[in-house]
């Protein structure tokens, strides 16, 4: 029983990392931009948030947890959004190929994370010595009282605040996309930018904003990993392939934020399943780690069978938009 509870807890923690990335990517893709730079952007968000908190605590004899949290959140979101801005300038204004730009950004972002991770490790006195104790503890603080309820408390209330924030963001994003005028405009741009343009919508502005905000959101996933999952330290390439899982989750969730919530928990569970199955050899472990991708491929196969228009990616995904080429 207790193993099961731990498994579910860990699955949710893994899932939240991925969910932030997926929400950011959904926001971006709804505008017709396929940002494959999300994995790199998540690295950028993670290291920037960590650096913010690190310098704050380093220069401050009596750091305040709330200030540390706000600084790290702001740093993570801003730098990740800047990553999105690089992507936007290249693909929207300069109309560079989206796939190439995204992949380049992923390589850049990973390097960015490892470079600065190494730098602050050195400042802190060695690998694994980075300490953001006060801020880190605020991230990992559980809900007092509620988390003490047996079983239920462990399952539902034993996470840091970013977990709940993520669920709220998912719900808000869903409301935004499907219940507001701006969401309708954004979806129209992703489907058919020419039509949206003719309807008087500022396509460029929407694309820039959704790509940058989406990247910022994804950056929070990186921060979550660094602060809550790793407890406030940096390991080179520690984030692994979770960024790609986030991109896969977007497809799995059929571009719907609410689907992404349970999809993320499923992906999280599949991602760590190998640790909980006794007697797996090295090679079998790798096979198990690939499960989320296998599931995504199966979903792709099924959605292509059904051919339902609502389940397809935004029709304008990956295509640059030229007004003159109408």
């Amino acid at each position, binding site marked *: 029983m207790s193993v099961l509870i731990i498994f579910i807890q860990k699955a949710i923690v893994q899932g939240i990392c991925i969910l932030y990335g997926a929400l950011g990517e959904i926001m971006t893709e709804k505008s017709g931009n396929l940002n494959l730079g999300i994995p790199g952007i998540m690295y950028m968000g993670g290291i920037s948030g960590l650096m913010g908190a690190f310098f704050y605590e380093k220069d401050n004899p009596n750091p305040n947890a709330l200030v540390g949290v706000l600084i790290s959140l702001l740093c993570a979101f801003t730098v990740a959004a800047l990553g999105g801005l690089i992507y936007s300038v290249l693909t929207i204004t300069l109309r560079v190929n989206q796939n190439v730009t995204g992949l380049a950004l992923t390589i850049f972002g990973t390097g960015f994370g490892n470079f600065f991770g190494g730098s602050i490790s050195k400042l802190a006195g060695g690998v694994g010595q980075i300490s953001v104790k006060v801020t880190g503890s605020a991230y990992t603080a559980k809900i007092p009282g509620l988390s003490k309820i047996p079983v239920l408390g462990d399952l539902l209330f034993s996470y840091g605040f970013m977990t709940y924030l993520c669920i709220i963001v998912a719900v808000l994003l869903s409301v935004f996309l499907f*219940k*507001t*005028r*701006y969401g*309708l*405009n954004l*979806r*129209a741009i992703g*489907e*058919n930018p*020419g*039509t*949206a*343009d*003719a*309807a*008087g*919508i500022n396509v460029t502005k929407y694309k820039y904003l959704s790509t940058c905000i989406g990247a910022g959101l994804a950056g929070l996933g990186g921060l979550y990993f660094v602060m809550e999952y790793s407890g406030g330290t940096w390991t080179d390439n520690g984030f692994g392939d979770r960024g790609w899982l986030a991109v896969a989750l977007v497809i799995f969730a059929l571009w719907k934020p609410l689907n992404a919530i349970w999809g993320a928990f499923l992906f999280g569970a599949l991602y760590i399943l190998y640790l909980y199955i006794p007697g797996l050899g090295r090679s079998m472990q790798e096979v198990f780690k690939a499960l989320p991708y296998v599931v995504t491929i199966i979903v792709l196969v099924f959605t292509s069978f059904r*051919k339902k*228009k*609502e389940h*397809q990616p935004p*029709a304008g995904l990956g295509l640059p938009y030229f007004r003159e080429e*109408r």
Partner: protein
Amino acid sequence: MGENYALELKQITKRFGSVLANDHVDLTLKKSEILAILGENGSGKTTLMNMIYGIYYPDEGHILVDGKEVSIRSPKDSHHLGIGMVHQHFKLVDVLTAAENIILGLPGKTMLNMKKVTAEIQALVNKYGFDIDLSQKIYEMSVSQKQTVEIVKMLYRGARILILDEPTAVLTPQEADRLFDILRNMRDDGCSIIIITHKLQEVLALSDRVAILRKGRYIDTVETAKANVQSLSEMMVGAKVDLDIDRPEPVSPQKRLEIKGLTCRDKEGIKTLDDVDLVVNSGEILGIAGISGSGQKELLEAVAGLQAAESGTILFTDADGNQKDLAKMDSVEIQELGVSLAFVPEDRIGMGLVGDMDMTDNMMLRSYHNGKGGLLDRRGPRQLATTIKDQLEIMTPSISSPVRQMSGGNVQKVLVGREIAQNPKILMVAYPTRGIDINSSHTIYKLLNEQKKHGVAVICVIEDLDVLLALCDRIAVLCGGKISGVVNGRSATKEGIGLLMTKHEKGGEQ
């Protein structure tokens, strides 16, 4: 004087590089009137309208709305001035509902109350007698329903001046009549409507006045009541034109093709052709009529061997009486028998021609496999390209410039010319005159008639029923993949064919 006009254009000029698209055009649109703008392709109709709608900005001249001078820099500006445009290619988002498309991009409360919005639009729909379901998704709609959504969209945005670019190109005659009724309703309600078209019959039936453009220049505006087909077309072309399409009697027709029980399915398993029986004779032109997507393309492709038949036979009889079943042969073998297909798809280039290649290379697409050895023989195709260019008066800088850069009419001439040069026994053309002007169209009709005189069996799919009725010896009407009737081109009426186009069982005279 000025306040009577909803819209005035004064001395509008627009250049694209060295090309003069509009040369000092004057135009007036009265309140509560339907103005038709008539002109051949490339006469500058669409450019002019795009300037009113804010897609282009005029180089010279003034635009006045309700007597006041305005500057229209984007579609948004034109919305504010109450100008709406329904484009030839609809600007709708497929996965959204009609109501969502209508309110797209409009300012308003952040949270959407679809119920309230839908009720507002519904009131408008009822007022003018439109027939649409606002909660239906666009991709589930027919072309005429989509067009209705576009018109409602413009009205909901407060358009008092509505521009329609070739609105009837995609409609059946009945649907077009219904559209005209609605447009008249709107006019009587105080809207001003501009309709761009090159179908003279429609101009005469619908409009109050007609403005004629020729080669970017404004020719004249005349009262429709005082005009007729002949006078309008002369103003449009600038010279006396022979509008009659020649229809020689078929010379000793023989059965060339006999289709029996032909059934085809598409990838989703839906029947695109359903038990089609059809006879095609040599020396005659057989027209195929039908709403677009009724199986015209599939029928031609099945004969050409590009589409696998699920069941049925396509018996080909050559001049000596030998018979072969085309349904069992592949496309290359069929080509060798002399079955030629010139298919002009909606985007013109795509099937048949390669846009980035020049005329010579496009000629070679047909003949490259005849060469000896591994190297290509370019000389023959080059000669052919030159001949076609001269004979069909194709306007292109040279035979080595990419086909993509030619105008639509010229591309079609290249395609039809190439197919005719194969000396076919059966010539199939689809939409050979789609979107091209009267002069070029008549050149192509003449080409088809020449082939007919040479004893070729010609099958043509043409959308314009007036042309079909003037050109064809017999007309087969397709409806939902079935032949709903085969009528005599000399005695059939437009209304009769229109009925068959929407009728789902067999009928009509053989």
